[in-house]
């Protein structure tokens, strides 16, 4: 596939100095899991895609920390990811990629490149106590002290960018306070982009998806962090002899909603439909073989199937190229849209 200069530039610029070009440039640390999806009774009315009409569809997942650092920092405040691949009855796949942040930082790929450049990690600075006092007297929350091993951070640049660009403010503000979940299984994940689903009645609806954990959403206490490496162990422990479930909720957009702008979440008053339940029953074991398999997977938010199509959101469209290019760059299992690892360099 042909990659635009813009898609390549975005992927290249996302790579952090403490990352690796053999790994993903963002959502670098992750763990795989498997399970199955069962649609709700009403799901086919809204979407005739295979996994919404088939009683049970196998699924492969990858949970991740949003940072591009190759060092694990589970207890740092960070966006988390949940990529799901549904293995459909005809042997094909479809992906649904979500994150804990309910909106994105930019409306277009060009803006996202600007944001990426502005938010390139820079050396972290301790804010002087005198400046903190000044901030408190201005009713401004002082910037938190760096984490013990934190050398670089995108926060300063991201906040500066948001101060100049209204569209990125909600995402930057919420990302700054997002925290660390007690488990990958206890966070809500949002697909952010709008998709168009077609129901049994051939009516098209503009929708957004969210995974909601049956176990409930819960964050760690930031004043009592559990350590840098706990999320993968807790996932394995939980799924060793139990299952864990998520419900797939679907918001239906209305005329006037931001169909093609992922910086704007839709109000919670939109009609929503419970589309099904995902049951996880296996976590990747702590072995090289398992790690190689799951970490080499190449998801793509544009890997869709009849019954679901992409909206006109330009960020969603460029993710097709960006994910495929990134997959080739890190020598992963070829992305469904790539011509193979060798062709993607």
């Amino acid at each position, binding site marked *: 596939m042909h990659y635009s200069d813009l898609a390549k530039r975005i992927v290249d610029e996302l790579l952090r100095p403490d990352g690796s070009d053999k790994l993903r440039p963002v959502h670098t640390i992750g763990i795989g899991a498997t399970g199955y999806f069962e649609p709700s009774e009403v799901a086919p009315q809204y979407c005739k895609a295979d996994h919404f009409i088939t009683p049970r569809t196998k699924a492969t997942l990858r949970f991740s920390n949003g940072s591009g650092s190759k060092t694990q920092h589970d207890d740092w405040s960070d966006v988390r990811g949940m990529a799901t691949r549904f293995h459909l009855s005809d042997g094909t796949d479809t992906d649904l990629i979500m994150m804990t942040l309910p909106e994105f930082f930019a409306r277009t790929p060009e803006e996202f490149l600007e944001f990426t450049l502005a938010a390139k990690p820079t*050396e*972290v600075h*301790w804010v*002087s*106590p005198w400046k*903190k*006092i000044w901030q*408190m*007297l*201005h*009713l*401004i*929350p*002082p910037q938190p*002290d*760096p984490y*013990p091993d*934190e*050398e670089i951070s995108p926060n300063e640049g991201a*906040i500066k960018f*948001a*101060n*100049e*660009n*209204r569209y990125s*403010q*909600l995402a*930057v*503000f*919420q990302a700054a306070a997002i925290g660390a979940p007690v488990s990958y299984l206890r966070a809500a994940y949002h697909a952010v982009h709008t998709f168009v689903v077609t129901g049994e009645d051939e009516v098209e609806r503009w929708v957004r998806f969210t995974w909601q954990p049956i176990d409930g959403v819960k964050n760690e206490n930031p004043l009592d962090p559990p350590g840098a490496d706990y999320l993968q162990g807790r996932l394995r422990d939980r799924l060793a002899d139990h299952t864990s479930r998520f419900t797939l909720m679907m918001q*239906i957009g*209305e*005329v*006037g*909603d931001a169909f093609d702008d992922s910086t704007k*979440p839709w*109000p*919670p*008053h*939109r*009609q*929503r439909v419970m589309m099904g339940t995902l049951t996880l029953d296996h976590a990747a074991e702590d072995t090289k073989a398992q790690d190689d398999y799951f970490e080499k997977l190449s998801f793509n938010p544009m890997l869709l199937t009849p019954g679901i199509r992409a909206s006109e959101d330009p960020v969603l469209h460029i993710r097709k190229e960006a994910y495929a290019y990134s997959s080739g760059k890190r020598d992963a299992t070829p992305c469904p849209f790539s011509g193979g690892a060798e062709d993607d360099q």
Partner: protein
Amino acid sequence: MTNKDTWFNRYVNSLPTRGWFKLLSRYVVVPYWIWRDPKPKLPGGPRESPQPSENTQRMMNLIMPLKDPSPMGRAMAAMAIAQNVDEIFSGLDNVGTVHTARFLILGDNLCMISVYDGDFSNYIRDFIETIGSVFDAVISQIKGAEHMIPTCDHVEEFIEWVHDHDLFQAPDFPTDLFALQDAAKGLPTDGPAHEIMTLPRDLILQLHANPNLSLGGGYRSYPGYSAAQVRDKFGVGW
């Protein structure tokens, strides 16, 4: 990077929890900023929107100060409601667009909390039409409202009064507060961006202008459906 976690840094980090700093903030810092950057009172109730789901299950949080907040006065207000239960329930049935409604005595206020469909002014107008006499009994217990009795002769004034006593509904997405404050000041809502870390200060100052507010639009179990649609689905006759 040099670790600068000195005792002074730790002490400064703890300032927001220290009593003397809380007093300083309460009696000096916040009043200074209220003087320096006053925020206009933001209007109550749900904001206008042409979108269907924004016009169903809308919230009214009407906070009415009691004329006499003593136990005797509170009892009078309770009686004004209790003696008119049939009128209220019948009126709500006739209005037809109300999902839930209830009265509370909270602090020194009588509160009417309801969830309704459609236009706010029409909701209140329908209410006055169907149970105006009950409203007369209720607002006779309310400070600063006696001059609107009988409400059927002061419909528009009463609608404005209710709107003014309906709680401001904070936006569902925090950074939208900037645009609401800009709009209230007559500034363009797509002008230069605000510094995002001033949002907590803007919220504090807004809570001075609107001491009570509804936090967001709230949860709905079946969002986007009107009371009429729900009744129709269950086949309950009207």
